[in-house]
């Protein structure tokens, strides 16, 4: 089974699955806090790459922005510059990347917002704008995040000494649950 799935790109959803068990070699059943933290780390990686002008595969995004786009009021209002491609105008598209589905060992991250998914699709595929496939993880991303979280994953599977951390995590999970009804 692959550590990361292919990038799914439709007008209603742009997403990718991540198999945590394949990446870390342990079963994440009952480890909701860790799963969510890892999901967020993968999301942060995608956003960070896009904002620094990189495609999902680490190569540079097509630059510069077109002259026509640079002449638009939105471009000027956002204080953008032609040579700095960062997939950000209002921030809504990158801001809508979320954990879409969560099972014991598999996460699906992506965009399924009705306004932002078509936008993301357009950038990924180059439908009516130049193709700038910003969304997705590559093997290098996975390895780097694996290294970053390895100690935390090991600590979470130790039997003793985790009570205080678990108590805080439970409180945070409760607060997270309360944000689901908001916005």
């Amino acid at each position, binding site marked *: 089974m692959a550590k990361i799935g292919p990038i799914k790109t439709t007008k209603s959803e742009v997403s990718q699955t991540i198999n945590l068990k394949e990446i870390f070699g342990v079963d994440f059943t009952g480890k909701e806090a860790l799963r969510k933290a890892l999901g967020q780390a993968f999301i942060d990686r995608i956003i960070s790459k896009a904002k620094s002008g990189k495609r999902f595969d680490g190569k540079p995004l097509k630059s510069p922005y077109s002259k026509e786009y640079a002449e638009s009021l939105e471009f000027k209002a956002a204080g953008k510059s032609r040579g700095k491609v960062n997939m950000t105008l209002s921030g809504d598209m990158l801001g809508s990347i979320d954990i879409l589905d969560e099972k014991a060992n598999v996460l699906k991250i992506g965009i399924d917002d009705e306004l932002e998914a078509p936008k993301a699709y357009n950038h990924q595929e180059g439908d009516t704008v130049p193709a700038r496939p910003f969304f997705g993880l590559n093997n290098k991303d996975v390895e780097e995040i694996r290294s970053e979280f390895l100690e935390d994953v090991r600590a979470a599977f130790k039997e003793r000494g985790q009570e205080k951390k678990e108590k805080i995590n439970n409180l945070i999970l409760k607060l*997270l649950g309360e944000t689901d009804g908001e916005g």
Partner: protein
Amino acid sequence: MAKVDIKFNRQKLQADIIKRIDKVIDADPLKKDIGIFATTRLRFEARKGTPLNDERNFPPLKPITIDNREYLARFNRTHPAFNEARSNVTLTGQLLNALGFQVISRGVELLFIGERRPYRTGPNSVANDTPTNQEVADYLAEKGFRVFTKKGIESDRKFSSNITQIVRRFLRRSLK
């Protein structure tokens, strides 16, 4: 989400959830993220001429104002979003650039920060008065040019959902 306290163009963004987060973990980085998002968004919308106020627009400019702006544009470096006839509280850009925030106990307070660079009024002359950016924002608000209002912010679905996402992301990062 927000319990808001409004004074002309000063605004507190508060949420009970932030107070509860504060009891569990240090929420100051969260508040800073919210402040950065809010000021960036409000600035963007105002410069487009679609401010997050009750009307979602600024009043149209009077002909004399347009003439004044055209005149001042000859001697001052204008912001890219400037157009003499565009009602977007932007000429040099310094007012909206001054939109900032401070972290308070349950959230952030939005306000206009600092002194202004006076406009050049001719090739060798400069305006006499030097109000602060907050004073200019308050004056403009009295004239109907409100950069944001409580109702404007709270009724914008995207603004609210972005704040929720910021909170969620912060909470997830705090888990391990």
